[in-house]
Protein backbone atom coordinates (compact mmCIF):
# COMPACT_ATOMS: atom_id res chain seq x y z
CA UNK A 1 0.00 0.00 0.00
CA UNK A 2 1.24 3.34 -0.92
CA UNK A 3 0.64 6.48 1.10
CA UNK A 4 0.71 9.78 -0.77
CA UNK A 5 1.38 12.93 1.22
CA UNK A 6 -1.64 15.24 1.33
CA UNK A 7 -1.38 18.90 2.16
CA UNK A 8 -4.38 20.16 4.05
CA UNK A 9 -5.11 23.85 4.07
CA UNK A 10 -5.52 25.20 7.55
CA UNK A 11 -8.99 26.63 8.21
CA UNK A 12 -9.09 30.38 7.88
CA UNK A 13 -9.55 32.31 11.10
CA UNK A 14 -12.54 34.47 12.03
CA UNK A 15 -12.90 37.76 10.14
CA UNK A 16 -11.01 40.62 11.61
CA UNK A 17 -13.09 42.69 14.02
CA UNK A 18 -10.87 45.70 13.82
CA UNK A 19 -11.86 47.86 10.78
CA UNK A 20 -9.35 48.18 8.15
CA UNK A 21 -7.95 51.55 7.18
CA UNK A 22 -9.98 51.51 3.97
CA UNK A 23 -13.25 50.93 5.86
CA UNK A 24 -12.38 53.77 8.22
CA UNK A 25 -11.75 56.15 5.36
CA UNK A 26 -15.00 55.15 3.62
CA UNK A 27 -17.03 55.62 6.81
CA UNK A 28 -15.45 58.98 7.47
CA UNK A 29 -16.18 60.20 3.96
CA UNK A 30 -19.82 59.11 4.14
CA UNK A 31 -20.25 60.82 7.52
CA UNK A 32 -18.81 64.09 6.22
CA UNK A 33 -21.03 63.95 3.12
CA UNK A 34 -24.14 63.31 5.24
CA UNK A 35 -23.28 66.16 7.57
CA UNK A 36 -22.87 68.60 4.68
CA UNK A 37 -26.09 67.53 2.96
CA UNK A 38 -28.11 67.57 6.17
CA UNK A 39 -26.84 71.01 7.12
CA UNK A 40 -27.65 72.45 3.70
CA UNK A 41 -31.18 70.99 3.67
CA UNK A 42 -31.87 72.16 7.23
CA UNK A 43 -30.73 75.68 6.43
CA UNK A 44 -32.86 75.84 3.27
CA UNK A 45 -35.99 74.62 5.06
CA UNK A 46 -35.44 77.06 7.93
CA UNK A 47 -35.02 79.97 5.53
CA UNK A 48 -38.26 79.16 3.71
CA UNK A 49 -40.23 79.02 6.97
CA UNK A 50 -38.93 82.40 8.05
CA UNK A 51 -39.84 84.07 4.74
CA UNK A 52 -43.57 83.52 4.83
CA UNK A 53 -44.24 81.47 7.91
CA UNK A 54 -45.53 82.40 11.27
CA UNK A 55 -42.16 82.37 12.91
CA UNK A 56 -40.97 85.82 11.91
CA UNK A 57 -38.07 86.43 14.23
CA UNK A 58 -35.56 88.16 12.01
CA UNK A 59 -35.60 91.94 12.15
CA UNK A 60 -35.98 93.70 8.83
CA UNK A 61 -34.30 96.84 10.12
CA UNK A 62 -37.61 98.68 9.75
CA UNK A 63 -39.27 98.95 13.17
CA UNK A 64 -42.69 99.71 11.74
CA UNK A 65 -42.60 96.70 9.42
CA UNK A 66 -41.42 94.43 12.23
CA UNK A 67 -44.29 95.55 14.44
CA UNK A 68 -46.84 95.18 11.63
CA UNK A 69 -45.53 91.68 10.89
CA UNK A 70 -45.84 90.78 14.56
CA UNK A 71 -49.43 91.99 14.54
CA UNK A 72 -50.11 90.08 11.34
CA UNK A 73 -49.02 86.61 12.37
CA UNK A 74 -48.10 86.45 16.04
CA UNK A 75 -50.34 88.84 17.97
CA UNK A 76 -53.67 87.60 19.35
CA UNK A 77 -56.57 88.34 17.03
CA UNK A 78 -58.03 90.76 19.59
CA UNK A 79 -54.91 92.92 19.34
CA UNK A 80 -54.94 92.83 15.56
CA UNK A 81 -58.62 93.80 15.52
CA UNK A 82 -57.96 96.67 17.92
CA UNK A 83 -55.36 98.13 15.55
CA UNK A 84 -57.14 97.08 12.35
CA UNK A 85 -57.43 100.51 10.72
CA UNK A 86 -53.78 101.41 11.11
CA UNK A 87 -52.72 97.87 10.19
CA UNK A 88 -54.72 97.66 6.97
CA UNK A 89 -53.94 101.25 5.97
CA UNK A 90 -50.20 100.76 6.49
CA UNK A 91 -50.29 97.46 4.60
CA UNK A 92 -51.82 98.81 1.39
CA UNK A 93 -50.16 102.24 1.58
CA UNK A 94 -46.64 101.42 2.79
CA UNK A 95 -45.95 97.69 2.26
CA UNK A 96 -48.40 96.55 -0.42
CA UNK A 97 -46.36 93.51 -1.46
CA UNK A 98 -45.36 92.12 1.91
CA UNK A 99 -46.72 88.57 2.00
CA UNK A 100 -46.54 88.34 5.80
CA UNK A 101 -48.75 91.40 6.26
CA UNK A 102 -51.31 89.92 3.87
CA UNK A 103 -51.61 86.95 6.21
CA UNK A 104 -52.84 89.49 8.76
CA UNK A 105 -55.36 90.84 6.27
CA UNK A 106 -56.58 87.27 5.86
CA UNK A 107 -56.95 86.85 9.62
CA UNK A 108 -58.96 90.08 9.80
CA UNK A 109 -61.20 89.03 6.92
CA UNK A 110 -61.97 85.69 8.56
CA UNK A 111 -62.68 87.44 11.85
CA UNK A 112 -65.05 89.98 10.31
CA UNK A 113 -66.96 87.19 8.58
CA UNK A 114 -67.36 85.21 11.80
CA UNK A 115 -67.87 87.92 14.43
CA UNK A 116 -71.29 89.49 14.22
CA UNK A 117 -70.80 91.84 17.17
CA UNK A 118 -67.82 93.76 15.80
CA UNK A 119 -68.09 97.56 15.86
CA UNK A 120 -68.76 99.09 12.44
CA UNK A 121 -68.66 95.60 10.96
CA UNK A 122 -70.41 96.36 7.67
CA UNK A 123 -68.32 99.42 6.86
CA UNK A 124 -65.03 97.73 7.76
CA UNK A 125 -65.97 94.63 5.75
CA UNK A 126 -66.70 96.75 2.67
CA UNK A 127 -63.45 98.68 3.12
CA UNK A 128 -61.48 95.45 3.49
CA UNK A 129 -63.12 94.00 0.37
CA UNK A 130 -62.00 97.07 -1.58
CA UNK A 131 -58.44 96.69 -0.35
CA UNK A 132 -58.32 93.00 -1.30
CA UNK A 133 -59.82 93.59 -4.75
CA UNK A 134 -57.27 96.27 -5.62
CA UNK A 135 -54.23 94.51 -4.22
CA UNK A 136 -51.44 92.91 -6.21
CA UNK A 137 -52.76 89.55 -7.41
CA UNK A 138 -49.69 87.69 -6.17
CA UNK A 139 -50.09 88.65 -2.52
CA UNK A 140 -53.89 88.63 -2.44
CA UNK A 141 -54.61 85.52 -4.54
CA UNK A 142 -55.74 83.42 -1.57
CA UNK A 143 -57.96 86.20 -0.24
CA UNK A 144 -59.83 87.10 -3.43
CA UNK A 145 -62.52 84.55 -2.69
CA UNK A 146 -63.33 86.39 0.56
CA UNK A 147 -64.04 89.76 -1.07
CA UNK A 148 -67.58 88.92 -2.30
CA UNK A 149 -68.45 87.50 1.12
CA UNK A 150 -67.18 90.68 2.77
CA UNK A 151 -69.31 92.76 0.40
CA UNK A 152 -72.40 90.85 1.55
CA UNK A 153 -71.85 91.58 5.26
CA UNK A 154 -74.77 93.55 6.69
Amino acid at each position, binding site marked *: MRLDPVLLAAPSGPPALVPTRRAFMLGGTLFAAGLSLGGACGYAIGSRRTEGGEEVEVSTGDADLDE*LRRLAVKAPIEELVKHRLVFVNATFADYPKDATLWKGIGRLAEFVLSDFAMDDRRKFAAALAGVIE*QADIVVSRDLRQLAPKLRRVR
Partner: protein
Amino acid sequence: MTTQEGEGIRTTGAAVQGGTMTVEVGPNDSTVEVSVGSSDRTQSIPVPPGKTAVIPVPDVPAGTVLWVSVGKGLRRRTILVEVIALLT
Protein backbone atom coordinates in the same frame (compact mmCIF):
# COMPACT_ATOMS: atom_id res chain seq x y z
CA MET B 1 -75.02 111.95 9.54
CA THR B 2 -72.87 110.82 12.45
CA THR B 3 -69.53 112.34 13.24
CA GLN B 4 -66.63 109.96 13.33
CA GLU B 5 -63.41 110.70 15.08
CA GLY B 6 -60.13 109.23 16.09
CA GLU B 7 -57.23 110.82 17.90
CA GLY B 8 -56.21 113.81 15.78
CA ILE B 9 -58.77 113.44 13.02
CA ARG B 10 -62.49 113.97 12.75
CA THR B 11 -65.01 113.94 9.95
CA THR B 12 -68.48 112.74 9.15
CA GLY B 13 -69.05 109.00 8.81
CA ALA B 14 -70.42 109.35 5.29
CA ALA B 15 -69.81 111.60 2.30
CA VAL B 16 -72.18 112.38 -0.54
CA GLN B 17 -71.15 111.34 -4.04
CA GLY B 18 -69.83 114.33 -5.96
CA GLY B 19 -69.75 116.50 -2.85
CA THR B 20 -67.14 117.42 -0.31
CA MET B 21 -66.23 116.21 3.15
CA THR B 22 -64.92 118.26 5.99
CA VAL B 23 -61.97 116.83 7.87
CA GLU B 24 -60.61 118.36 11.06
CA VAL B 25 -56.99 117.53 11.85
CA GLY B 26 -54.67 118.20 14.76
CA PRO B 27 -52.07 120.98 14.91
CA ASN B 28 -49.17 118.77 13.83
CA ASP B 29 -50.62 117.35 10.66
CA SER B 30 -50.18 119.23 7.41
CA THR B 31 -51.72 116.74 4.98
CA VAL B 32 -54.70 114.44 4.83
CA GLU B 33 -54.60 111.29 2.74
CA VAL B 34 -57.74 109.96 1.11
CA SER B 35 -57.60 106.50 -0.45
CA VAL B 36 -59.99 103.94 -1.83
CA GLY B 37 -57.78 101.15 -0.49
CA SER B 38 -54.78 101.13 -2.76
CA SER B 39 -51.51 103.02 -2.76
CA ASP B 40 -52.08 103.77 -6.45
CA ARG B 41 -55.34 105.52 -5.72
CA THR B 42 -54.38 107.78 -2.83
CA GLN B 43 -54.70 111.55 -2.79
CA SER B 44 -52.62 113.69 -0.46
CA ILE B 45 -54.33 116.97 0.32
CA PRO B 46 -52.43 119.76 2.08
CA VAL B 47 -54.18 121.35 5.00
CA PRO B 48 -53.14 124.20 7.28
CA PRO B 49 -52.10 122.85 10.73
CA GLY B 50 -54.89 122.82 13.24
CA LYS B 51 -57.40 123.76 10.60
CA THR B 52 -60.26 122.18 8.79
CA ALA B 53 -59.82 120.72 5.34
CA VAL B 54 -62.66 120.61 2.84
CA ILE B 55 -61.88 117.71 0.56
CA PRO B 56 -63.70 116.81 -2.66
CA VAL B 57 -65.12 113.30 -2.53
CA PRO B 58 -63.29 111.16 -5.10
CA ASP B 59 -65.25 110.01 -8.12
CA VAL B 60 -66.15 106.53 -6.91
CA PRO B 61 -69.36 104.48 -6.90
CA ALA B 62 -71.77 104.81 -3.99
CA GLY B 63 -70.99 102.22 -1.34
CA THR B 64 -67.24 102.68 -1.67
CA VAL B 65 -65.51 103.15 1.67
CA LEU B 66 -62.71 105.72 1.80
CA TRP B 67 -59.66 105.47 4.04
CA VAL B 68 -59.05 108.98 5.41
CA SER B 69 -55.85 109.35 7.41
CA VAL B 70 -53.24 111.67 8.83
CA GLY B 71 -49.68 110.78 9.83
CA LYS B 72 -47.35 108.08 8.61
CA GLY B 73 -46.54 104.49 9.50
CA LEU B 74 -47.72 103.28 12.88
CA ARG B 75 -48.41 106.86 13.94
CA ARG B 76 -51.10 107.10 11.29
CA ARG B 77 -54.67 107.79 12.45
CA THR B 78 -57.33 106.48 10.13
CA ILE B 79 -61.09 106.72 9.87
CA LEU B 80 -63.45 105.16 7.34
CA VAL B 81 -65.90 107.27 5.37
CA GLU B 82 -68.61 105.68 3.25
CA VAL B 83 -69.63 107.33 0.00
CA ILE B 84 -73.40 107.49 -0.36
CA ALA B 85 -75.58 108.39 -3.32
CA LEU B 86 -77.57 111.59 -3.17
CA LEU B 87 -81.27 110.83 -3.45
CA THR B 88 -83.13 113.19 -5.75
